[in-house]
């Protein structure tokens, strides 16, 4: 497989091309086969590569495959090269695996959509771009995948284009991430300029020699700019909640397998730059901590089930950033992995619920419908999946995978000495339990009497992904001891500077439970603390939190409106006025001079006389 692992990203891209060209003429069955099949084969390739790679694991040698020379100009040569090492392998495996399940699920979810083919084409491209990003051995190729991911998110968020809000959300997603991308690009310039190469390995090596200068910090900060855009961290997080406008499988794909995790991957991949710069590391940690807290608070106030999940993603990615920032590199990647499983699971089960409720997103309305029995009942698989996923998200200790990975990050924050970061992470931990189960209890508690039946065809297409992911959401935590050293092959390890007292060890396990308990108190059908709940929901700040701390308004006021105003201001091109003015002045001269042509002979003769006088005077005087 060493020379064939390029097929991992290539197959989805080929699938995209085939679907884009012939999708309109294919039957739904063919589209389904093509769309899911390409990812399936890609998954097989990935598994085969993994098998072989692990066999040669002891050597620790990454696989590098240079496909072709992209371009070479004096001073810089860039090639399209892929690299498989433990980091990219884990990443690719998770991406393609989750992606595959989501594709399977999509086959059910999007069944009957008038543009079934287009959907799968773009989904395939999305996966392909993400895999390119992950497997890229060259930063510029990574950037290509990076932008491709952004493009696909744009296309898919706006998939149902007939709704204007969807189109707006799609554009917002692309533009906001592109702001980050531009920082990334400038970082690329610096890397290319200073190291003379864009090959990740070479650049990482040569940057080590420039430790003394501020250069690594600058580059790392710029890369971080790119990462916060894609991963929806402060201050570029605003696109993610709106991105829920896309079909639910798209949300699942964006949140679990592709797109938002790209930022985490970027920082992990470029770790050589970050470890050289304590400043950048602190920044990563701080951004992660702040985002996780902000997002968690916002999640608490959401009524749209998907928006809640979106904020939870933001918050979880915040944990990953935090982990990267405090030096818990492997833990972050591990959290990425578990998060991919349970977040995909949550979205898919949410999708089932939403579909069953006729596209109802509001948790209170869903509850009402469930209670009144006016809607299709929710199938049990959705209930159990949501419960499993929610538990993992809330990091229910010991049994869920989320707990293993998250606890590692939190303890990493403590042991590396970032106390306030640690505190925020703990607060987030508590909030996560609260908001997750707020939704769970609101929707499901006390509705268990309904007859669960599955209304729809192709049940297996939804059952299998949910079942598989449920299992993975639980068991993925148990391979911690395998995966951490494996990632450690590539990622740096940071020695702890602080011991871990028992309270620090136990806190992250307890806090989610407290959160869940509080949620039960507040939101269960037999809730006691209704007064507190009422207060919280009527609090003056609830709207503020609901809108995600009003970043949208801030940006609208600071950037979008001035930009649009500038656009309106120069719409007719003020520079052109200068030229128009010249034309007008010339015209004015024309009319003024024209009045001199009176047609009167005597005037004409007089002018001859005056002219003569002037010429004679001039000739004689000078």
């Amino acid at each position: 497989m060493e020379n064939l692992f390029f097929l991992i990203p290539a197959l989805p891209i080929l699938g995209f091309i085939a679907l884009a060209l012939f999708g309109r003429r294919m039957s739904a069955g063919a589209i389904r086969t093509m769309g899911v099949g390409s990812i399936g084969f890609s998954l097989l390739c990935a598994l085969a590569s993994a098998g072989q790679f692990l066999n040669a694991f002891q050597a620790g040698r990454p696989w590098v495959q240079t496909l072709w020379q992209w371009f070479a100009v004096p001073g810089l040569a860039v090639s399209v090269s892929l690299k498989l090492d433990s980091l990219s392998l884990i990443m690719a495996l998770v991406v393609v695996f989750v992606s595959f399940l989501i594709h399977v699920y999509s086959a059910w979810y999007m069944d009957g959509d008038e543009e079934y083919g287009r959907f799968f084409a773009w989904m395939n491209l999305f996966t392909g771009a993400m895999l390119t990003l992950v497997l890229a051995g060259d930063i510029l190729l990574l950037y290509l995948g990076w932008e491709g991911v952004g493009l696909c998110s744009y296309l898919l968020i706006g998939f149902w284009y007939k709704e204007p809000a969807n189109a707006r959300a799609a554009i917002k997603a692309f533009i906001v991430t592109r702001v980050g991308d531009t920082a990334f690009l400038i970082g690329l310039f610096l890397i290319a300029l200073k190291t003379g190469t864009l090959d990740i390995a070479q650049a990482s090596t040569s940057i080590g020699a420039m430790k003394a200068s501020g250069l690594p910090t600058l580059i790392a900060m710029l890369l971080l700019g790119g990462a916060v855009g894609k991963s929806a961290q402060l201050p570029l997080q605003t696109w993610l909640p709106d991105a829920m406008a896309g079909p639910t499988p798209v949300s699942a794909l964006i949140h679990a397998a592709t797109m938002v995790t790209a930022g985490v991957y970027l920082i992990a991949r470029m770790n050589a730059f970050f470890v050289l710069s304590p400043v950048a590391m602190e920044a990563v940690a701080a951004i992660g901590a702040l985002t996780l807290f902000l997002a968690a608070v916002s999640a608490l106030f959401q009524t749209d089930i998907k928006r809640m999940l979106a904020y939870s993603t933001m918050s979880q990615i915040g944990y990953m950033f935090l982990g990267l920032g405090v030096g818990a590199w492997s833990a972050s990647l591990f959290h990425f992995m578990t998060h991919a499983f349970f977040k995909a699971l949550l979205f898919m089960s949410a999708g089932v619920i939403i579909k069953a409720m006729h596209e109802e997103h509001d948790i209170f309305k869903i509850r009402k419908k469930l209670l009144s029995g006016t809607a299709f009942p929710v199938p049990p698989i959705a209930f159990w999946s949501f419960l499993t996923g929610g538990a993992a998200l809330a990091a229910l200790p010991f049994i869920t995978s989320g707990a293993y990975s998250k606890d590692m990050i939190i303890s990493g924050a403590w042991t590396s000495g970032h106390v306030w970061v640690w505190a925020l992470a703990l607060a987030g931990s508590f909030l996560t339990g609260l908001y997750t189960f707020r939704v769970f209890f609101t929707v499901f508690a006390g509705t268990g009497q309904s007859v669960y039946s599955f209304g729809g065809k192709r049940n297996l297409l939804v059952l299998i992904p949910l079942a598989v992911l449920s299992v993975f959401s639980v068991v993925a935590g148990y391979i911690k001891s395998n995966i951490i050293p494996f990632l450690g092959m590539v990622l740096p390890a940071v020695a702890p500077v602080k011991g871990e007292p028992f309270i620090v060890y136990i806190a992250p396990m307890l806090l989610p439970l407290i959160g869940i308990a509080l949620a039960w108190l507040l939101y269960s059908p037999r809730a006691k603390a209704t007064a507190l709940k009422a207060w919280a929901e009527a609090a003056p700040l609830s709207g503020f939190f609901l809108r995600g701390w009003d970043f949208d308004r801030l940006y609208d006021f600071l950037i979008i409106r001035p930009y649009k105003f500038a656009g309106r201001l120069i719409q007719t091109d003020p520079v052109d006025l200068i030229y128009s003015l010249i034309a007008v002045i010339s015209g004015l001269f024309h009319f003024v001079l024209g009045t001199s042509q009176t047609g009167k002979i005597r005037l004409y003769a007089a002018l001859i006389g005056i002219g003569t006088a002037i010429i004679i005077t001039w000739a004689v005087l000078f």
Partner: protein
Amino acid sequence: MGARELIALLPIILISVSAVLAMLATAFIKSESAPAYVSAIGFVIAFISLFVAYPELPRAVTPLLIMDYFSYFYIGLIILAGLAVSLLAYPDFKKRGVRQGEFHVLLLLSVAGSATLAASAHFASFLLGLEILSVSLYAMIAYDRPDIKGLEAGTKYLVLASVSAAFLFFGMAMVYAGVGTMDLAGIAVNGIGGSISALAGIAMILVGIGFKLALVPFHMWTPDVYEGAPSPVTAFVASASKGAVFALVLRYFTQAGIHDTGALAYVLLAVSIASMFIGNLLALLQENLKRLLAYSSIAHLGYLLLLIAAGGRGAFIAGGYYLAAYFAAIIGAFGIISALSTGRKEPRMLDDIRGLAWESPWLAGFLSAMLLSLAGIPLTAGFIAKFYIISLGISKAMWWPVIMLIINSVIGLAYYLRVIAAVYERPQKELFNAMQTGAEAGKISLISGGVLAVLSVITVILGIYPPLLLKIIERTL
């Protein structure tokens, strides 16, 4: 004056003879067309005689006339212009229902006058040539008797040209009084000494010349006369009458090294730049076609004057080329107006030719070629001509005048393009048909069509392969 001198003088003699013959034909042959034939054939023969007499050059024919390559070049141009005008006038006057006879006599006479002017070497021949030309022109301009505009134009030209001639003659007398010779070359070479009256005389001669060349501030007559005169006559006024004077000026001013004299050179420069600006600005938004061309001709003479202010060998080449290109273009432009006229009604306004291209693509093509040549755009003779002027300016490091010229080229381009745009506008039923042009009536005569075609071809060929003409001009140096 021996046989050789006479041979050298042959072109002028032949034209004069043709004039007499045409007069006789008018008087004794009933056919309307006879004088036209006489004039056309006379021009052709006179033109051929240039080549016959060619080996006799250069030769001074009496102290009054100098027949050399330079004179011949301009005489040739003038004869060709006369031929074109004669051919254009024939169908034009037919449409108007005006007698042909006397016009062709006058035309031949004015060509004889112009030729004399171009070859003159003495105040006397200068005076005589100019007057023969002018007096014929008075009559030609007002030739279409029923046309009140023609009369107005004729009167204006008569009065103003006479006044300017008086200035010119008085100036000559002053110069004569100052330097004691009337030999142009002598004055040019020896200068006028410190004589103030002679200097004033030179200035007054400039006035007379400025009037004929329609330079600012002596340009006021131009639009009225151009508009009032029948289009073929306008073509003649715009071309031959200016060309002859310009030839004279080019020869003697350059010989005198006027570009090095300081004061006078500045006068020329000032007049030149003023002419460019005022001519072009007046033309800029002009809706009346003939007036537009009139104003543009003011600007063109401004460009030409720049050559004289620059002086040197280059001025001769540039002047010759520019004048040739300008002749073809301006005669062609007025020729098209003439060709499009129906009787006394000419397409006066821009609106009258709107959408011409859709009625008569060939004429529209010719007109575009002429206008683009006047604007100095490649593929036309005007481009090479303008190139030479700019080239001369740069070689003399006259940066500012050249920039002025460029600015004016751009203004000029604006109104030429306005005309072309109108011509190629899609005909809108309610807007078009403001007047029934000849094109629409399908009454373009073969003769004018042919002349225009030839002029267009000349314009384009001179734009693509300039050495054709350059070789000839280089002989004149």
